[in-house]
Protein backbone atom coordinates (compact mmCIF):
# COMPACT_ATOMS: atom_id res chain seq x y z
CA UNK A 1 0.00 0.00 0.00
CA UNK A 2 2.83 2.32 0.97
CA UNK A 3 4.63 1.50 -2.28
CA UNK A 4 1.47 2.05 -4.29
CA UNK A 5 0.95 5.47 -2.75
CA UNK A 6 4.57 6.33 -3.43
CA UNK A 7 4.25 5.12 -7.01
CA UNK A 8 1.12 7.15 -7.65
CA UNK A 9 2.87 10.25 -6.33
CA UNK A 10 5.78 9.97 -8.76
CA UNK A 11 5.78 13.10 -10.79
CA UNK A 12 6.86 12.98 -14.38
CA UNK A 13 8.06 16.56 -14.49
CA UNK A 14 8.00 18.59 -17.63
CA UNK A 15 7.09 15.66 -19.82
CA UNK A 16 6.70 17.32 -23.20
CA UNK A 17 3.15 17.51 -24.46
CA UNK A 18 4.24 15.93 -27.76
CA UNK A 19 5.45 12.81 -25.87
CA UNK A 20 2.04 12.24 -24.32
CA UNK A 21 0.40 12.97 -27.69
CA UNK A 22 2.66 10.35 -29.34
CA UNK A 23 1.62 7.87 -26.64
CA UNK A 24 -2.06 8.71 -27.10
CA UNK A 25 -1.96 8.44 -30.92
CA UNK A 26 -0.02 5.15 -30.74
CA UNK A 27 -2.55 3.75 -28.26
CA UNK A 28 -5.40 4.81 -30.57
CA UNK A 29 -3.72 2.97 -33.48
CA UNK A 30 -3.32 -0.10 -31.28
CA UNK A 31 -6.94 0.18 -30.21
CA UNK A 32 -8.25 0.41 -33.79
CA UNK A 33 -6.13 -2.59 -34.80
CA UNK A 34 -7.22 -4.75 -31.84
CA UNK A 35 -10.85 -3.63 -32.04
CA UNK A 36 -10.88 -4.59 -35.72
CA UNK A 37 -9.58 -8.09 -34.90
CA UNK A 38 -12.11 -8.40 -32.07
CA UNK A 39 -14.98 -7.47 -34.40
CA UNK A 40 -13.70 -9.97 -36.98
CA UNK A 41 -13.59 -12.61 -34.25
CA UNK A 42 -17.17 -12.05 -33.13
CA UNK A 43 -18.38 -11.87 -36.75
CA UNK A 44 -16.67 -15.21 -37.36
CA UNK A 45 -14.54 -13.74 -40.12
CA UNK A 46 -10.88 -13.66 -41.02
CA UNK A 47 -9.50 -10.30 -42.15
CA UNK A 48 -7.81 -10.03 -45.54
CA UNK A 49 -4.14 -10.81 -45.15
CA UNK A 50 -1.63 -9.27 -47.55
CA UNK A 51 1.42 -10.42 -45.61
CA UNK A 52 1.77 -13.66 -43.66
CA UNK A 53 -0.97 -16.10 -42.78
CA UNK A 54 -3.62 -14.47 -40.64
CA UNK A 55 -5.89 -17.52 -40.78
CA UNK A 56 -3.32 -19.73 -39.12
CA UNK A 57 -2.60 -17.28 -36.33
CA UNK A 58 -6.15 -16.11 -35.72
CA UNK A 59 -7.61 -19.61 -35.66
CA UNK A 60 -4.79 -21.09 -33.55
CA UNK A 61 -5.27 -22.24 -29.98
CA UNK A 62 -3.33 -19.15 -28.85
CA UNK A 63 -5.81 -16.67 -30.34
CA UNK A 64 -8.05 -16.88 -27.28
CA UNK A 65 -7.60 -17.17 -23.54
CA UNK A 66 -10.60 -19.08 -22.29
CA UNK A 67 -13.70 -17.50 -23.81
CA UNK A 68 -11.92 -14.22 -24.57
CA UNK A 69 -10.13 -13.55 -27.84
CA UNK A 70 -6.65 -12.14 -27.28
CA UNK A 71 -7.65 -9.26 -29.57
CA UNK A 72 -10.36 -8.23 -27.08
CA UNK A 73 -7.81 -8.15 -24.25
CA UNK A 74 -5.59 -6.05 -26.52
CA UNK A 75 -8.44 -3.67 -27.30
CA UNK A 76 -9.18 -3.27 -23.57
CA UNK A 77 -5.50 -2.65 -22.86
CA UNK A 78 -5.22 0.07 -25.50
CA UNK A 79 -8.56 1.54 -24.42
CA UNK A 80 -7.26 1.72 -20.84
CA UNK A 81 -4.06 3.46 -21.98
CA UNK A 82 -6.10 5.95 -24.06
CA UNK A 83 -8.47 6.57 -21.15
CA UNK A 84 -5.64 7.13 -18.67
CA UNK A 85 -3.83 9.52 -21.00
CA UNK A 86 -7.07 11.34 -21.69
CA UNK A 87 -7.63 11.63 -17.93
CA UNK A 88 -4.14 13.14 -17.64
CA UNK A 89 -4.86 15.63 -20.42
CA UNK A 90 -8.14 16.52 -18.73
CA UNK A 91 -7.11 16.73 -15.07
CA UNK A 92 -3.31 17.18 -15.23
CA UNK A 93 -3.14 14.75 -12.29
CA UNK A 94 -0.02 12.62 -12.35
CA UNK A 95 -1.44 9.29 -11.28
CA UNK A 96 -3.25 8.39 -14.54
CA UNK A 97 -0.09 9.22 -16.47
CA UNK A 98 2.01 7.10 -14.10
CA UNK A 99 -0.35 4.15 -14.38
CA UNK A 100 -0.38 4.48 -18.20
CA UNK A 101 3.43 4.67 -18.40
CA UNK A 102 3.96 1.63 -16.16
CA UNK A 103 1.12 -0.33 -17.79
CA UNK A 104 3.05 -0.28 -21.06
CA UNK A 105 5.30 -2.93 -19.48
CA UNK A 106 2.32 -5.34 -19.42
CA UNK A 107 1.54 -4.69 -23.09
CA UNK A 108 5.20 -5.03 -24.05
CA UNK A 109 5.61 -8.36 -22.19
CA UNK A 110 2.39 -9.73 -23.68
CA UNK A 111 3.47 -8.74 -27.19
CA UNK A 112 6.90 -10.35 -26.74
CA UNK A 113 5.09 -13.58 -25.89
CA UNK A 114 2.75 -13.32 -28.89
CA UNK A 115 5.58 -12.53 -31.31
CA UNK A 116 7.47 -15.55 -29.93
CA UNK A 117 4.37 -17.72 -30.47
CA UNK A 118 3.98 -16.50 -34.04
CA UNK A 119 7.61 -17.04 -35.02
CA UNK A 120 8.44 -20.23 -33.16
CA UNK A 121 5.26 -22.10 -32.27
CA UNK A 122 2.60 -21.29 -34.88
CA UNK A 123 5.30 -20.49 -37.45
CA UNK A 124 3.08 -17.98 -39.19
CA UNK A 125 2.73 -14.23 -39.05
CA UNK A 126 -0.42 -12.19 -38.77
CA UNK A 127 0.10 -8.64 -40.02
CA UNK A 128 -2.52 -7.20 -37.65
CA UNK A 129 -0.82 -8.87 -34.68
CA UNK A 130 2.49 -7.42 -35.83
CA UNK A 131 0.95 -3.92 -36.00
CA UNK A 132 -0.16 -4.41 -32.40
CA UNK A 133 3.35 -5.58 -31.51
CA UNK A 134 4.83 -2.41 -33.02
CA UNK A 135 2.39 -0.13 -31.17
CA UNK A 136 3.06 -1.95 -27.87
CA UNK A 137 6.83 -1.63 -28.39
CA UNK A 138 6.55 2.06 -29.31
CA UNK A 139 4.41 2.70 -26.20
CA UNK A 140 6.90 0.85 -24.01
CA UNK A 141 10.00 2.57 -25.41
CA UNK A 142 8.47 6.07 -25.29
CA UNK A 143 7.07 5.44 -21.79
CA UNK A 144 10.37 4.14 -20.41
CA UNK A 145 12.23 7.01 -22.01
CA UNK A 146 9.78 9.47 -20.44
CA UNK A 147 10.13 7.82 -17.03
CA UNK A 148 13.91 7.80 -17.23
CA UNK A 149 14.20 11.36 -18.46
CA UNK A 150 11.41 13.21 -16.72
CA UNK A 151 10.65 11.44 -13.44
CA UNK A 152 13.67 12.68 -11.49
CA UNK A 153 13.13 15.19 -8.67
CA UNK A 154 12.63 18.69 -9.89
CA UNK A 155 15.07 21.44 -9.20
CA UNK A 156 13.91 24.38 -7.09
CA UNK A 157 13.80 26.60 -10.14
CA UNK A 158 11.59 24.04 -11.92
CA UNK A 159 9.20 23.95 -9.00
CA UNK A 160 9.12 27.71 -8.75
Amino acid at each position, binding site marked *: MKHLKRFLKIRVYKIPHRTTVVLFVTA*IIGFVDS*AYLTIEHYMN*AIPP*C*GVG*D*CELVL*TSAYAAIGPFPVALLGALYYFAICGLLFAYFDTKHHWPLNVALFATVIGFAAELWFVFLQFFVIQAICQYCMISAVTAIVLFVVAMHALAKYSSSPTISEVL
Partner: protein
Amino acid sequence: MNSTSSITKRILTWAGFIIVIGLIIWGLVVAENKNIAKKAAVVLRTPVSSADWITGSTTAPIAIVEYSDFQCPACEAYHPLLKRLIAEEGTRFSFVYRHFPLPQHKNAYPSAIATEAAGKQGKFWEMHDIIFEHQRDWQDLEDPTVLFTEYAKTIGLSLEQFSADFKDTSGVLHAKAEASLKEGQKTGIQGTPTFFVNGKMIDNPRSYEALKAILENKGL
Protein backbone atom coordinates in the same frame (compact mmCIF):
# COMPACT_ATOMS: atom_id res chain seq x y z
CA MET B 1 -21.38 28.71 -11.03
CA ASN B 2 -17.76 28.15 -11.93
CA SER B 3 -17.85 24.72 -10.35
CA THR B 4 -21.01 23.78 -12.32
CA SER B 5 -19.54 24.93 -15.60
CA SER B 6 -16.30 23.07 -14.92
CA ILE B 7 -18.26 19.86 -14.17
CA THR B 8 -20.31 20.36 -17.35
CA LYS B 9 -17.12 20.92 -19.31
CA ARG B 10 -15.60 17.76 -17.89
CA ILE B 11 -18.72 15.70 -18.63
CA LEU B 12 -18.74 17.01 -22.19
CA THR B 13 -15.03 16.27 -22.63
CA TRP B 14 -15.45 12.67 -21.48
CA ALA B 15 -18.64 12.24 -23.46
CA GLY B 16 -16.65 13.37 -26.51
CA PHE B 17 -13.95 10.80 -25.76
CA ILE B 18 -16.49 7.98 -25.36
CA ILE B 19 -18.32 9.08 -28.53
CA VAL B 20 -15.06 9.04 -30.53
CA ILE B 21 -14.25 5.53 -29.27
CA GLY B 22 -17.82 4.46 -30.04
CA LEU B 23 -17.57 5.95 -33.54
CA ILE B 24 -14.34 4.03 -34.16
CA ILE B 25 -16.02 0.74 -33.17
CA TRP B 26 -19.15 1.57 -35.18
CA GLY B 27 -17.01 2.49 -38.22
CA LEU B 28 -15.16 -0.83 -38.01
CA VAL B 29 -18.42 -2.80 -37.80
CA VAL B 30 -19.88 -0.89 -40.77
CA ALA B 31 -16.67 -1.43 -42.77
CA GLU B 32 -16.73 -5.16 -42.01
CA ASN B 33 -20.39 -5.46 -43.00
CA LYS B 34 -19.59 -3.67 -46.27
CA ASN B 35 -16.67 -6.06 -46.79
CA ILE B 36 -18.96 -9.07 -46.28
CA ALA B 37 -21.51 -7.62 -48.71
CA LYS B 38 -18.76 -6.86 -51.22
CA LYS B 39 -17.50 -10.43 -50.98
CA ALA B 40 -21.00 -11.85 -51.36
CA ALA B 41 -21.29 -9.79 -54.55
CA VAL B 42 -18.32 -11.65 -56.05
CA VAL B 43 -19.69 -14.60 -57.95
CA LEU B 44 -18.08 -17.59 -59.60
CA ARG B 45 -17.44 -16.90 -63.26
CA THR B 46 -17.28 -20.57 -64.17
CA PRO B 47 -20.08 -22.73 -62.79
CA VAL B 48 -19.26 -26.13 -61.33
CA SER B 49 -19.02 -28.69 -64.10
CA SER B 50 -17.87 -32.24 -64.72
CA ALA B 51 -14.44 -30.81 -65.51
CA ASP B 52 -14.05 -29.92 -61.81
CA TRP B 53 -12.77 -32.14 -59.02
CA ILE B 54 -15.90 -32.80 -57.00
CA THR B 55 -16.46 -34.81 -53.86
CA GLY B 56 -19.54 -35.24 -51.68
CA SER B 57 -22.94 -35.30 -53.32
CA THR B 58 -23.05 -33.99 -56.89
CA THR B 59 -26.85 -33.70 -56.73
CA ALA B 60 -27.03 -31.75 -53.43
CA PRO B 61 -28.38 -28.18 -53.62
CA ILE B 62 -25.36 -26.78 -51.76
CA ALA B 63 -21.97 -26.51 -53.42
CA ILE B 64 -18.76 -25.25 -51.84
CA VAL B 65 -15.99 -24.25 -54.22
CA GLU B 66 -12.54 -23.66 -52.79
CA TYR B 67 -9.77 -21.88 -54.65
CA SER B 68 -6.71 -23.19 -52.89
CA ASP B 69 -2.95 -23.52 -52.94
CA PHE B 70 -1.38 -26.72 -51.59
CA GLN B 71 1.56 -24.80 -50.11
CA CYS B 72 -0.55 -22.16 -48.38
CA PRO B 73 -0.50 -22.81 -44.60
CA ALA B 74 -4.02 -21.43 -44.18
CA CYS B 75 -5.33 -23.83 -46.84
CA GLU B 76 -3.64 -26.63 -44.95
CA ALA B 77 -5.34 -25.41 -41.77
CA TYR B 78 -8.75 -25.59 -43.45
CA HIS B 79 -8.09 -29.06 -44.84
CA PRO B 80 -9.08 -31.02 -41.66
CA LEU B 81 -12.19 -28.85 -41.24
CA LEU B 82 -13.34 -29.62 -44.75
CA LYS B 83 -12.48 -33.31 -44.43
CA ARG B 84 -14.56 -33.50 -41.26
CA LEU B 85 -17.45 -31.69 -42.92
CA ILE B 86 -17.31 -34.03 -45.91
CA ALA B 87 -17.19 -37.06 -43.59
CA GLU B 88 -20.15 -35.83 -41.54
CA GLU B 89 -22.33 -34.06 -44.09
CA GLY B 90 -20.91 -35.16 -47.43
CA THR B 91 -24.21 -36.51 -48.66
CA ARG B 92 -25.82 -33.09 -48.36
CA PHE B 93 -23.39 -30.86 -50.25
CA SER B 94 -20.73 -31.02 -52.91
CA PHE B 95 -17.19 -29.81 -52.48
CA VAL B 96 -15.13 -28.60 -55.41
CA TYR B 97 -11.39 -27.99 -55.35
CA ARG B 98 -9.87 -25.50 -57.80
CA HIS B 99 -6.18 -24.68 -58.10
CA PHE B 100 -4.92 -21.20 -57.27
CA PRO B 101 -1.15 -21.71 -56.81
CA LEU B 102 0.34 -18.46 -55.55
CA PRO B 103 3.60 -17.36 -57.16
CA GLN B 104 5.33 -16.82 -53.79
CA HIS B 105 4.94 -20.54 -53.00
CA LYS B 106 7.54 -22.23 -55.16
CA ASN B 107 6.17 -25.76 -54.76
CA ALA B 108 2.51 -24.86 -55.02
CA TYR B 109 2.38 -25.29 -58.78
CA PRO B 110 4.24 -28.66 -58.85
CA SER B 111 1.94 -29.93 -56.10
CA ALA B 112 -1.10 -28.89 -58.16
CA ILE B 113 0.33 -30.84 -61.11
CA ALA B 114 1.00 -33.85 -58.85
CA THR B 115 -2.69 -33.93 -57.84
CA GLU B 116 -3.76 -33.58 -61.47
CA ALA B 117 -1.42 -36.43 -62.42
CA ALA B 118 -2.97 -38.56 -59.66
CA GLY B 119 -6.41 -37.47 -60.85
CA LYS B 120 -5.62 -38.92 -64.25
CA GLN B 121 -5.46 -42.26 -62.49
CA GLY B 122 -8.63 -41.56 -60.52
CA LYS B 123 -6.93 -40.63 -57.27
CA PHE B 124 -7.03 -36.83 -57.17
CA TRP B 125 -8.54 -36.68 -53.67
CA GLU B 126 -6.10 -39.21 -52.23
CA MET B 127 -3.18 -37.13 -53.52
CA HIS B 128 -4.92 -33.91 -52.41
CA ASP B 129 -5.12 -35.29 -48.85
CA ILE B 130 -1.61 -36.68 -48.61
CA ILE B 131 -0.08 -33.51 -50.05
CA PHE B 132 -1.90 -31.30 -47.54
CA GLU B 133 -1.13 -33.63 -44.64
CA HIS B 134 2.60 -33.56 -45.42
CA GLN B 135 2.84 -29.92 -46.44
CA ARG B 136 5.66 -29.14 -44.01
CA ASP B 137 7.76 -31.99 -45.45
CA TRP B 138 7.85 -30.70 -49.03
CA GLN B 139 7.14 -26.98 -48.89
CA ASP B 140 10.79 -25.93 -48.65
CA LEU B 141 12.32 -28.58 -50.88
CA GLU B 142 14.30 -27.48 -53.89
CA ASP B 143 12.65 -30.27 -55.88
CA PRO B 144 9.65 -32.09 -54.36
CA THR B 145 9.47 -34.69 -57.18
CA VAL B 146 10.95 -37.54 -55.12
CA LEU B 147 8.54 -36.98 -52.27
CA PHE B 148 5.53 -36.60 -54.56
CA THR B 149 6.53 -39.88 -56.27
CA GLU B 150 6.64 -41.52 -52.83
CA TYR B 151 3.13 -40.23 -52.15
CA ALA B 152 2.05 -41.63 -55.53
CA LYS B 153 3.43 -45.00 -54.44
CA THR B 154 1.66 -44.76 -51.05
CA ILE B 155 -1.74 -44.15 -52.62
CA GLY B 156 -1.19 -46.93 -55.15
CA LEU B 157 -0.62 -45.11 -58.43
CA SER B 158 1.23 -46.47 -61.42
CA LEU B 159 4.55 -44.75 -60.87
CA GLU B 160 5.55 -44.90 -64.49
CA GLN B 161 2.42 -43.09 -65.60
CA PHE B 162 2.55 -40.65 -62.69
CA SER B 163 6.13 -39.67 -63.49
CA ALA B 164 5.37 -39.25 -67.17
CA ASP B 165 2.32 -37.06 -66.44
CA PHE B 166 4.06 -35.07 -63.73
CA LYS B 167 7.03 -34.27 -65.96
CA ASP B 168 5.01 -33.47 -69.07
CA THR B 169 5.24 -29.67 -68.92
CA SER B 170 3.37 -29.11 -72.16
CA GLY B 171 0.46 -31.36 -71.36
CA VAL B 172 -3.18 -30.95 -70.52
CA LEU B 173 -2.54 -31.06 -66.75
CA HIS B 174 -0.59 -27.81 -66.84
CA ALA B 175 -3.23 -26.25 -69.05
CA LYS B 176 -5.89 -27.23 -66.51
CA ALA B 177 -4.00 -25.80 -63.51
CA GLU B 178 -3.18 -22.60 -65.39
CA ALA B 179 -6.76 -22.19 -66.55
CA SER B 180 -7.99 -22.55 -62.98
CA LEU B 181 -5.50 -19.91 -61.80
CA LYS B 182 -6.47 -17.47 -64.57
CA GLU B 183 -10.16 -18.02 -63.93
CA GLY B 184 -9.63 -17.32 -60.24
CA GLN B 185 -7.76 -14.11 -61.04
CA LYS B 186 -10.56 -12.96 -63.36
CA THR B 187 -13.10 -13.75 -60.66
CA GLY B 188 -11.25 -11.39 -58.33
CA ILE B 189 -9.65 -13.79 -55.92
CA GLN B 190 -7.01 -12.04 -53.83
CA GLY B 191 -5.66 -14.86 -51.71
CA THR B 192 -6.09 -18.43 -50.61
CA PRO B 193 -8.16 -20.12 -49.51
CA THR B 194 -11.19 -18.42 -51.04
CA PHE B 195 -14.55 -20.13 -50.66
CA PHE B 196 -17.74 -19.83 -52.65
CA VAL B 197 -21.01 -21.23 -51.40
CA ASN B 198 -23.58 -21.70 -54.14
CA GLY B 199 -21.54 -19.42 -56.37
CA LYS B 200 -21.16 -16.54 -53.90
CA MET B 201 -17.88 -15.68 -52.19
CA ILE B 202 -17.97 -15.94 -48.39
CA ASP B 203 -15.78 -14.58 -45.61
CA ASN B 204 -13.43 -17.34 -44.52
CA PRO B 205 -15.04 -19.03 -41.51
CA ARG B 206 -13.05 -19.04 -38.30
CA SER B 207 -13.91 -22.53 -37.13
CA TYR B 208 -15.64 -25.77 -38.07
CA GLU B 209 -18.78 -24.58 -36.31
CA ALA B 210 -18.73 -21.30 -38.23
CA LEU B 211 -18.29 -23.15 -41.51
CA LYS B 212 -21.17 -25.47 -40.68
CA ALA B 213 -23.34 -22.52 -39.63
CA ILE B 214 -22.85 -20.92 -43.06
CA LEU B 215 -24.06 -24.12 -44.71
CA GLU B 216 -26.95 -24.48 -42.28
CA ASN B 217 -28.08 -21.00 -43.30
CA LYS B 218 -28.24 -22.33 -46.85
CA GLY B 219 -30.45 -25.19 -45.70
CA LEU B 220 -27.92 -27.92 -44.89
